[in-house]
């Protein structure tokens, strides 16, 4: 699982505030530094100007002694100030030179010098005092150490750093609380979702009370729940139908076997019981195989062993097969249209045969059925129409559902277990198509479509053995 959103958010808040605080602190620091150094320079300049006036008023050696005294007085005992006069005449000199590494240039004639062994700089101001009387031109260097200024800056910097760190931590902690509060609807949503259970499938998330960001999520989640619920419902009623469908043959089997065994029976009677049992077993086998076939298409399995064929030819092949039942029912069939498509001919034959059987069951003797092959955009529609009563929209909606039977057809449920049209649907889906039913002008049309290129399932037969079998791709024991 990914880290929690509130943790991520507070970490991001903390990072952002660290950057902002650092920038602000750095700005403050540089402003402070400039102000302090300006002040330092100005006070240094004032002192240097006084000193240069003193030096300027000493044109001879007697006066120079007085200069030296004055300058010595100006230098405080803590040696924070340095005065140094240098010139070509050794009589007009004062003090010791300031030695060290030049670390910066802070003004037109100001330098920062770091004396060896010290951790603070000395700021120097250099003046040229022109020659006067005996005295040649001399250079006056006034220096002031920056212990106070730099010390102040350092402690300011440390204080800033500590403050930034503390505030960042504070932001992190506060934003953790804030994001938790802000994400409360999400927590509520997930708690609500956690309470969804199969026992109460009508339950949905309350999307109205949610902020708009979550509203959409909750709505689509509810949509997914709705679809799952539908599927679940279908499955549930399917299970019930299956159980019901199996119950009849099983109870016949149990009952007639028990009856047969309660007395001594003749061989003929026992044979008859066994034969009747066998018929019921056959029925069970057919249902089981059909269910297995349907579950294959439910799993999204695609048709294999595709061949490009004329669908009209396939229709006619099935008409040839169904010739006798059609004659018995006194029905004629007209075939219209043609198109080629990549299909599994056995599956298509099965679907077409089921459509015809459906039409035969619902047609009056003497009428004419119409079978059509109609190419559409990328698909081919195969349909069988028969004259008949208009179909109720509810019936139309469910006619391809498993075990769905119109009331009238329930009477002959022994031959027709209600999976015929759902197998048509399964075959269509295995070929990337769909099913449809139309009812207009006294004609009912049932049909399905297939993708011309066989959907995305077109591929060479997997194994040579299959081609040799010629039927391996199909369910062998499934019936419509």
């Amino acid at each position, binding site marked *: 699982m990914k880290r929690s959103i509130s943790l991520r958010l507070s970490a991001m808040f903390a990072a952002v505030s660290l950057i902002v605080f650092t920038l602000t602190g750095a700005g403050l620091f540089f402003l402070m530094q400039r102000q302090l150094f300006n002040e330092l320079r100005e006070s240094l300049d004032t002192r240097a100007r006084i000193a240069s006036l003193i030096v300027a008023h000493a044109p001879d050696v007697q006066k120079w002694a007085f200069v030296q005294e004055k300058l010595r007085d100006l230098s405080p005992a803590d040696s924070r100030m340095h005065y140094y006069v240098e010139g070509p005449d050794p009589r007009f000199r004062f003090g010791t030179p300031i030695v060290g590494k030049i670390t910066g240039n802070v003004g037109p004639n100001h330098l920062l010098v770091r004396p060896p062994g010290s951790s603070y700089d000395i700021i120097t101001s250099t003046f040229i005092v022109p020659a006067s009387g005996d005295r040649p031109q001399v250079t006056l260097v006034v220096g002031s150490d920056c212990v106070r200024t730099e010390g102040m800056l350092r402690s300011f910097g440390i204080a800033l750093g500590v403050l930034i760190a503390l505030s960042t931590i504070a932001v992190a902690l506060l934003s953790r609380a804030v994001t938790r509060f802000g994400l409360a609807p999400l927590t509520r949503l997930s708690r609500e979702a956690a309470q969804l259970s199969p026992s109460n499938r009508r339950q949905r998330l309350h999307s109205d009370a949610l902020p708009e960001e979550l509203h959409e999520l909750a709505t689509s989640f509810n949509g997914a729940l709705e679809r799952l619920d539908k599927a679940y419902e279908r499955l549930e009623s399917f299970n019930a139908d299956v159980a019901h469908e199996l119950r009849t043959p099983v109870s016949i089997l149990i009952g007639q076997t028990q009856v047969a065994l309660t007395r001594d029976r003749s061989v003929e009677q026992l044979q008859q019981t066994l034969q009747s049992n066998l018929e019921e077993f056959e029925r069970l086998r057919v249902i089981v195989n059909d269910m297995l076939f349907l579950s294959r298409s439910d799993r999204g399995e695609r048709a294999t062993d595709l061949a490009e064929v004329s669908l009209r030819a396939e229709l006619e092949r099935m008409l040839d097969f169904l010739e006798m039942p059609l004659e018995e029912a006194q029905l004629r069939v007209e075939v219209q249209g043609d198109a080629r498509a990549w299909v599994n001919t056995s599956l298509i*034959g099965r679907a077409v045969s089921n459509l015809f059987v459906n039409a035969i069951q619902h047609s009056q003797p003497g009428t004419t059925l119409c079978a059509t092959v109609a190419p559409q955009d990328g698909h081919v529609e195969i349909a069988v129409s028969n004259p008949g009563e208009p179909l109720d929209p509810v019936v139309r909606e469910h006619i391809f559902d498993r075990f769905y039977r119109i009331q009238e057809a329930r009477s002959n449920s022994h031959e027709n277990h209600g999976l015929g049209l759902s197998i048509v649907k399964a075959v269509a889906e295995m070929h990337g198509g769909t099913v449809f039913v139309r009812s207009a002008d006294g004609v009912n049309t049932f049909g399905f479509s297939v993708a011309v290129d066989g959907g995305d399932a077109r591929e060479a037969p997997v194994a040579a053995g299959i081609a040799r079998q010629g039927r391996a791709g199909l369910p062998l024991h499934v019936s419509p």
Partner: protein
Amino acid sequence: MKVLVIEDERKVVDYLRSGLTEQGWVVDVAMDGEEGAWMATEYDFDVIVLDVMLPKLDGFGVLRAVRAKKDTPVIMLTARDRVDDRVHGLRDGADDYLTKPFSFLELIERLRALTRRARAQESTLISVGDLQVDLISRRATRDGVRLDLTAKEFQLLSVLARRRGEILSKTLITELVWDVNFESNANVVETAIKRLRAKLDGPHAAKLLHTIRGMGYVLEVREEGGQTS
């Protein structure tokens, strides 16, 4: 003909053993995969019936073991109707497969097909009692009277006549007569049989075409009228 049945379900083994024995097969049984693989490689069989789900070594394992040494025909029984199973089996060298639940008749038919090495030269003139079916001129006569059959009816009769005495399931008939290999609930076979029966047996006291309830149809001469339901 010797058949090896490799299957762990006791009831299936029992009915296969008695059913196949009655059909004239010599039946050996292995109850798990290892024993089956050992027997199949150690002894010679004409055909092997192999279940996919087996203890110790599954059907595919047995098949590989057998194929490593022999090319005895193998028919596989699969419980799941999954293409993968079939592809798996056929690629590994199974010769045929049946999906459970399957019918015993179907199994018999498949076993015969696998062991019938080039069907014995077939006669083109078949007689069943007073019925004569000429496969070349496509004529059928009974008691010297020509039967007026449609093309499909003749084909149905010739399929039944070629395998006289054998019970043919509806599935098999559908496949052999119409080349349709799925079961249909369209009553095609029933209707065709009804029509053929009317022409073939209608005027005669001795019936030749018999319905075996729940199993299929057989064309044969029966001593005392037989049973036609």
